[in-house]
């Protein structure tokens, strides 16, 4: 198969960028999208040109490193799945494919297709944890957790932290990401004692990082490789409202 690529090139975070045309020729349909880019990069390096910078690590959809917007869609057309799980057989021979970085106000471009998602880490640092000191835990089966709660918590906890939700959102909101962590921990008895403080701090941090508000467009859910449900955003809103009330009541 052959493809015309239009790839975002930007030397540094401060500099200006633009789309540059490349050809990917003789590509097997069984090649993954990232492997196709690998091959383009090999050719560029052979010619002495600078390869296209893009990040990946696990290449099986779990680490959340890859972060490409392909033909305008975060992670490309094959949902649910991360860009590293996309295969060329998904495209028409001869197609023109545009590749850009994840774009959101809170994600600065580092180089080409690489963005800085440190903001997501800082949201978790603002209380996205249970304060469990090593060695202080009670016997694991001493607190029963209904299977339904555990399963739902797992669904929320499955978030891979890729940031596609924010990249797809017209407001560049990180609500899906934040709601997944808030919900995961609020659904489990171990996470409840800190739930008030947690949701208030995490939301404040999200705002401070420059993520926008949620206006219920559901673009996030559509691109999420971990199939995080937008219903967790509703849960986040409830948690937040309750926490605000509790705070006001001086609890």
């Amino acid at each position, binding site marked *: 198969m052959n493809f015309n690529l239009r790839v975002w090139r930007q030397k540094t975070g401060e500099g200006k960028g633009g789309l540059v045309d490349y050809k990917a020729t003789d590509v*097997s349909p069984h090649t993954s999208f990232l*492997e196709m880019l690998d091959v383009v990069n090999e050719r560029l390096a052979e010619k002495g040109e600078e390869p296209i910078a893009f990040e990946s690590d696990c290449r099986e959809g779990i680490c959340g490193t890859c972060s490409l917007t392909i033909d305008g869609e975060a992670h490309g057309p094959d949902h649910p799945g991360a860009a590293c799980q996309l295969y060329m057989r998904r495209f028409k021979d001869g197609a023109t494919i545009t590749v850009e970085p994840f774009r959101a106000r809170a994600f600065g471009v580092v180089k080409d297709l690489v963005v800085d998602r440190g903001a997501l880490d800082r949201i978790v640092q603002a209380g996205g944890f249970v304060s469990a000191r*090593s060695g202080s*835990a009670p016997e694991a089966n001493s607190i029963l957790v209904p*299977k339904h709660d555990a399963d739902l918590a797992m669904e929320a*906890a*499955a978030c891979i932290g890729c940031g596609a939700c924010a990249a797809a959102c017209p407001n560049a909101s990180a609500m899906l990401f934040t709601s997944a962590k808030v919900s995961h921990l609020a659904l489990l008895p171990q996470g409840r004692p800190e739930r008030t403080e947690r949701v208030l701090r995490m939301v404040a941090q999200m705002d401070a990082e420059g993520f926008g508000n949620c206006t219920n467009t559901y673009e996030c859910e559509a691109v999420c490789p971990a199939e995080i449900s937008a219903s967790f955003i509703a849960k986040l809103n409830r948690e937040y409202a309750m926490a605000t009330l509790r705070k006001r009541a001086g609890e």
Partner: protein
Amino acid sequence: MIGTLESKVPSGPLASKWSGYKDHARLVSPANRRKLEVIVVGSGLAGGAAAATLGEQGYHVKCFCFQDSPRRAHSIAAQGGINAAKNYQNDGDSVFRLFYDTIKGGDFRSREANVYRLAEVSNLIIDQCVEQGVPFAREYGGLLANRSFGGAQVSRTFYARGQTGQQLLLGAYQSLCRQIDAKTVSMFPHTEMLDLVLVEGHAKGIITRNLVSGKIEVHAADAVVLATGGYGNVFYLSTNARGSNVTATYRAYKKGALFGNPCYTQIHPTCIPVSGQFQSKLTLMSESLRNDGRVWVPAKKGDQRAPSEIPDTERDYYLERKYPSYGNLAPRDISSRSAKEACDDGRGVGPDGRGVFLDFADAIGRLGEKTIRERYGNLFDIYEKITGEDAYKQPMRIYPAVHYTMGGLWVDYNLMSNVPGLHVIGEANFSDHGANRLGASALMQGLADGYFVLPYTLPTYLAGQIGKRPAVDHPAFRQAETEVRARIQKMVNVYGTRTVDSFHRELGLLMWDKCGMARNASGLREALGRIPALREEFWGNVRIPGTGEEYNQSLERAGRVADYLEFAELMCIDALERDESCGGHFREEHQTPEGEALRNDEKFAAVFAWEFQGNGAIETPRLHREALSFESVELAQRSYK
């Protein structure tokens, strides 16, 4: 020069060694902890857990990872589960049994006391993770659920869907975030360690490169902990993440740390086969598939018919034929080797003949497609995504792939290497899995080391180090920094004609061929002849576009490949020296008449720990042996017939 290797295993009966140790270990007072700094390289299960726990204890911790976030460490990809001796299923499990299964699974090539301690703390790990909010699978009554895994007769594996590694890592990551928030841990993501700094023989710092800016930086500390994972990517293709590397441990080796059992690698039998020259990594298909899938190849060589057209009588269900009692559930090393044999014999399937069928037709006939879909639906989906084939309609094609490295830096009972102050935890050390690791025990080891062992053993070193931290302008730092800069410059300056990846691929193929699933003396000698030539070509002809002073992925990879090009040689030397078969190390010269691994306990019940012999002498490391003695188990030949 290093004298005899001291494992520093405490005296006393096996079951009370660790508690006795803890009762008498030196402590550091809270006031002094504030004065001590610890470098932790790695944020996977081992490094993340260690950094968080040491931070909680009040030390100043600097934690490093090469990914853009600590949450992306390779541990995230582990699927199956984590073992613990809770005996929740009331099926007769105990600490001793977990210990015994692990030591037997390792083919009696690991240190008894370390393995026992691992089994002992396994239960604390589950308590700890549940308290952090890890959403383990549960039964309807709200109790924790378990599943069984290879190499055990009890059900002791805890899991969170097929994403256990992810959930355990996020637990550790969140604890790490809590300490970052509390300012006891400083996190350095996108930062790669390029060298270890010794001051008066003690590990007192590291040299790093900021992968975004290209800046070389020096960090001093009172102790250094390496938790940098395994080196499976020496084979280029493996189930490891793309960035997994040997650089940190290999650099430490070149500074005098001994490398233990480098040749011990685990090949996982059920992975999706290689398809084409540009494949960048291999994907694991959970071993659980072998519960219902039947493995076969055509009986005739070169049979090109579609699988559905090959009648049962012309198929060879080779595992069922060779191992009637274990059948398709034969252990990892044995299943892997049998697949290789069938393909070497010209009976492999798929485009390039390197694959075998894993067939669910019988199971679907017996249980119905719905049941199979419930059990393995997500795996069938992954398979279809990657291959474009529907495994409900035609058999899967699978082939073994490199998965885990049991070898690593040598450590004593304190998890300290022979270099004072340098501690090594998780997959990066050699310690607990002998010559073969059982499923669900790497996660256990990483978290055991990080949460429950290192936090007790590290203080015994630190207690004597208060006030001894060198300043970063100490000449040792200057020298190491100069060397790192010179090496980068040298690499960039070559500007030849071959890409970094082309060298890595060539090295990987060679290693897979000569030092992979089966090894023999002449193949290993051949590899030892070819690696130096490839290395020389690398340093004369590699092309790295761009400079060292910017974000440069070619340069990142080149540094790792350069180290693999040296390390590969050490692996082959070790594989040649270990003139026996054990676990994942199969020397064709040493097999039973039935083709099973044949150990030689008299000569090789020992750890091989290699010492680097100075510059320009990559090929002549010095061997140290740590004899393994077994007080509580009897050495037996493994049999799965």
